[in-house]
Structures are given as C-alpha cells and as structure tokens.
C-alpha cells in the first residue's frame, strides 16, 4: 500500500486549481477549515454528509463516463485520481465536522478492507488532527463533570496535555492524597454526536453499494457503531480496565493502572500515572535484543491473557497504548476498544485453537469454511485458497516451534501482501469481528516488527491456555 507521502506527490489537481501539488492543497484545505463556521445540529451535519455523498457520487459517475473512451492503463490511473479526489472531499468534510465524525474517520482508517486504499491513506492523516482543548475548556468541562475546578479538585493539575487521546486528551495531575494520576478528558459533546454521524456512514459509503459484499460491509458498520458507543463511555472503559487489571499478577511484569472512580465519570477517566516511554522513544535508547524480546513476550502474553482468561479481545495494539517502563514492566493503557466477545464469536474463535495447535492445513481449511460460512464440502476455490494462505501467514508465529523472528521483513510483508491481494480481489465478506482481528494482526505485527523481537509465541499461548484448565487432550499432542 502506498504511503501518504507517495499519494500526496501523486495527487491530481483540479482544473480550477492548476499547478497545486497535493501537499499544498491539503495544507490549504486545513487552513480554510479554521475560518469556517461549525455545524452543530444533527440535521446540519447530515445535510453536510448528504452534500458530500453527492460529490463523491458525481466523481464516480464522471469516472465511469470517461472510462468509455479510455484505455485500461489510463483507466486505472483515472480511478486512482477519482478516488483520491473523493478522499479529499471526505477528509474536508470530516475535518470540518471535527469531533464525532473524526472518530469515525480514525476508525475507518483502521479498517482498510472497507475502503479503497487511497481513502485509507488519506484518512490516516486524521490520526494527527484531533482537536486539542485549551486549558480554559478543560477547566470548564472538569468543573461540570467533577463539580469543581481542576485546581481545587486536585492538589496540582498540569495545564498542558501530555498525550492525545482519540476522543480527547490526557493531563497529568496529583491527587490531594498524593498519587500521581493521568486524567483523560473527552471533548465535550463528542460521544452523543457519534450516534448521529455513524447513521450517515452508510450513505457516505454509497459508492460501494454495488459490491457483492455490501451486506457484509453494512453489518460491520453496525458492529463498529456498537463498539464505538461503548468506547465513548469512560465508565465502561473504567470497568474494563479494572477487570483487566485483576488478570495480572506482580510476577507477570505487566501492569494496568488503577482507576480512581471518585474522579471519573462517563466523560472523564482518572487513573494511576505510569512513568515510562512509548516504543519509539524506547527504541531510540538502543535496548539490547534480550530486553526487546522480554518486552515483546509481555506484549504477546497480555493479549493471550485477556483472551483466554477473560474472553476479551484487545484489537488496539497502537504504540500509544503501551508503556515501556524503566524497571522492565510493560504498562497497558487505554481499554476503550477492548471487546467482550459474545458467545458465538468466542466459540468460533476457540475452534481456531485446533488448527493453530496442530498446524495442519486440512484443519485450517475446515475452520476457515466455518468462519466464512461455507458448507463443509465446499470446493477449494481461489477465495478459500487465498484466505488459507493469509491465515497461514498470520498464524505462523503461533504455529512455529520455538522462537519466531518478528523482525523477518519477508514474513512481515507476506501477510500484508496477501491481505492487499484479498482486498484487490474484493474478498472482503466475512464476520463483523474480522475488522477487529485484522486490526490486531497488523497492529501487533507492526509493534513486534519495530522491536525486531524474537518470541516463543507458542509457549506463551500454551501456558495461558493451560492456566484456564481447558481440555485439549484430543488434539494437543498432534502438533507438528
């Protein structure tokens, strides 16, 4: 997949803006946004989305018409241009609406199987454009939420945020009882408007409606809608955080910050502050292979612990969600995206354990047929074959005996390339949970690749499964 910089260099220009390079255009677009009025009501937002839908529809129609008299190669180029122009319009509207729709944009950027790659690459920009809150706004919001000014509620409160959160920002503070805390503050009003904005999302993705996978895409949007609603509720996140915290013991070397409920609401989350570095700064200090391996093993163990001990799936292996502490402990923060698996998903995911353990292709194919909702006697067509190769690549760290080298670039690229091939062939139909699994696959592989780590994933998985007392005696000895 091309990166944003490549796309910006390749971006076509509109006839009315001759000579403007993509980067300039994007910069000017954001300069213009600051001068615009902000729509506040649902109807105005929806009207705006409706206008956008018409613009994107028009762009696609123009492409279709031009396609009648253009050669194949040119047509491909033109499709990319059309999509990129549409992506700019999407970005402009999302930036304009800011707040809630931005969250949707960020979420979509994490689900590349929804959208043409130009959309995804453009949407990725939104990760860096969350609206910051100045202290006066933070103070008023906290006054409303906690019943007093931050200067009065806390012993001290840093006026500058030290970290951005997708729906707000995080400030360091000290409680009057002495504890150093991180206070996550949500941008006002953002949670309620998400509901209205996601409703417009199906309309927004109208150009994809003719795809054979449209029903599947719609189902996934509904799934995302439900999870987004939970993610915006910090009370829910606090509950999950406390649940996850209870899963780890001191000797795991994995720490989850304590939540201070009396300083938390649906929109404010106050937790113990964990001192440490994110992966970028950690790697800049040049840690040894052994130290990197140990952190990587903790990353892997954290996911398996949540999954097997609590039926939780943590899809958001974003670098900002992990703290590399100086004493060697790994800090886990941000549980807004953690999914509590429903019975059906849990049972089906549990069935993957058999092919994961044995590593046998026939068992992997049988599992994939069930996952893809195909009859058990379905022939192995191109789609199933490709899904199998993709699953094999994704599962390799788990099926491999001994340490798996996550720094192997060829292995890293293989899963990625297969995923792109699936996208290109539009084999995107699947379960709503797929998007969250892909997000974890790529998020975790990227983190471990950056660490250039070697981890015995299989041994960790076996330990975590054994701790649950799950009886796998009928196949656990079949492993290759």
């Amino acid at each position, binding site marked *: 997949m091309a990166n944003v910089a490549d796309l910006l260099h390749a971006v076509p220009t509109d006839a009315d803006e001759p000579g403007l390079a993509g980067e300039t255009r994007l910069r000017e677009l954001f300069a213009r946004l600051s001068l615009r009025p902000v729509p506040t009501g649902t109807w105005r937002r929806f009207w705006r989305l409706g206008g956008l839908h018409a613009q994107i529809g028009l762009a696609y129609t123009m492409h279709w018409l031009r396609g009648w008299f253009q050669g194949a190669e040119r047509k491909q180029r033109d499709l990319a241009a059309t999509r990129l122009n549409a992506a700019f319009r999407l970005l402009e509207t999302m930036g304009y609406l800011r707040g809630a729709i931005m969250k949707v944009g960020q979420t979509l950027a994490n689900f590349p199987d929804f959208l043409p790659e130009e959309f995804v690459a453009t949407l990725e920009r939104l990760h860096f454009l969350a609206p910051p809150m*100045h202290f*006066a706004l933070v103070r008023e919001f906290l006054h*409303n939420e906690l019943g007093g000014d931050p200067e009065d509620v806390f012993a001290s409160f840093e006026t500058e945020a030290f970290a951005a959160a997708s729906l707000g920002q995080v400030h360091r503070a000290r409680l009057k009882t002495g504890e150093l805390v991180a206070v996550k503050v949500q941008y006002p009003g953002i949670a309620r408007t998400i509901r209205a904005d996601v409703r417009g999302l199906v309309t927004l993705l109208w150009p994809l409606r003719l795809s054979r996978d449209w029903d599947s895409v719609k189902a996934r949007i509904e799934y995302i809608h439900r999870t987004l609603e939970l993610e915006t509720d910090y009370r829910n996140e606090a509950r999950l955080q406390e649940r996850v915290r209870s899963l780890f013991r001191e000797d795991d070397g994995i720490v989850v910050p304590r939540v201070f409920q009396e300083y938390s609401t649906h929109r404010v989350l106050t937790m113990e502050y964990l001192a440490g570095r994110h992966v970028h700064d950690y790697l800049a200090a040049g840690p040894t292979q052994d130290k990197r391996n140990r952190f990587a093993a903790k990353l892997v163990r954290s996911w398996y612990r949540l999954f097997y001990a609590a039926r939780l799936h943590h899809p958001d292996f974003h670098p900002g969600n992990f703290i590399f502490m100086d004493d060697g402990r790994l800090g886990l923060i941000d549980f807004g995206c953690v999914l509590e698996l429903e019975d059906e998903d849990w049972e089906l995911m549990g069935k993957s354990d058999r092919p994961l353990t044995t590593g046998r292709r026939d068992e992997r194919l049988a599992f994939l047929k069930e996952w893809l909702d195909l009859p058990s006697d379905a022939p192995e067509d191109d789609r199933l074959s490709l899904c199998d190769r993709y699953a094999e690549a994704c599962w390799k760290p788990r099926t491999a005996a001994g340490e798996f080298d996550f720094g192997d670039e060829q292995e890293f690229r293989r899963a990625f390339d297969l995923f792109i091939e699936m996208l290109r062939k539009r084999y995107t139909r699947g379960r709503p949970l797929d998007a969250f699994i892909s997000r974890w696959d790529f998020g975790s592989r990227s983190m471990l690749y950056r660490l250039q780590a070697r981890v015995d994933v299989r041994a960790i998985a076996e330990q975590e499964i054994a701790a649950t007392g799950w009886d796998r005696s009928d196949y656990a000895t079949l492993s290759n």
Partner: protein
Amino acid sequence: MRVSQQAKASTRKRILDSARVLFVREGFEHATTRHIAREARIAAGTLFNYFPTKEAIAAALVGEALDAAQEDFERRRRRCSLEEDLFAQVAAGLRRLKPFRRFLRPVLQSTPHPAGVADNEAAAIRGEQMERVRRLLAEHGIEPESPLTLQLYWTLYVGVLGFWTADRSPKQEDTLALLDQSLAMFAAWLRETARPESQRSHN
C-alpha cells in the same frame, strides 16, 4: 422627603434579591412586578422608579452576574492564547449566569441588534461587555479597525448565550463545544483581518 443614595441602593438591592428568588422559584413568566414588589416590601409603584419593566430587572441581574464573572475571570487569568482568553471570559459568565439560565432569553430579546435601541439596563450590559472584549483584544495586540469587529463579537456572544438557554445536552456540554469552535473561528478571522491586505487569504 429626599431619599438618600444609600436608601436608594438598598431598595434597588432588595428588588434584585427578591426578583432573583422569585425568578428561580416561580419562573420568569409567572413572577410579576407586583410579586417582586411585595417580596421586596415596597409599593408596586415604587418599583417602577427603579426598573421600568420586569425585563429590565432581569437585565440588571444579568449585569451583576457578568460583573462578578469578570472578577472571576481576572482572578483566574493566565498567560494564554487569544482564543483561550476569550473562551475563559465567556465561560466565567456562563457559570455566574447559570441560576438565571431559564430567564436569560427575554433579556437577550431586549438586545436584538448591536445598533438597536434597547432599555438602559440591557444597553449597559452590551456596552460593558463590548468594552471588556475591546480591552482583552488590545492586550493581545489587536486594535479593531472598525466597530464591526466588536459588533460581530456581540452577535456571536448573544448567539452562544441563546444556544445555551435552549441547550438540552448533558450539563450543556454542546455549548462548550460551540463556544470553543466559534471563538476559534472568530480569532482566526481577527488575525486574518489584522494582516496587511496583500498577505490575506482569498479562498
């Protein structure tokens, strides 16, 4: 008999205290000037020597709240951007006005246009607020070229207050977002107009 300035001030204060209680307890619509006079233990006719209408009483209460808010704002003030300063000033007002939120709308209606004719109390509020903003802008190095700047601010300010009086979002959080974004827009516009014509954006 001449009424001393002290007695006048005392009566005025009694009227406002009574009105504050009645407006909150009975609602602005149901609290009449007769009720207010009775609560303040004065004759109904006397009340009109101080305030010509019920709206003028409400405006005076709003004016008092905004004076107190300005003191709050000055006390808490810190070095910050123009946007933040403007936000903090309006937000301080919203806090002080909170008990009167339900009857703020009639006061706003009595000041329909920056250049319009309004009663003395409402006009005084507008004049004082615009002067406060002018001083704040000056402290950020912005001297408005024309009265239009302050009138634009006043329109925006009244719009936010009007939105706030009808805001049904939890703890009126939508007003905070609207205020934040509106003032960011206003500040961006101010900076743009403060630049020489040759350097302005023409998008």
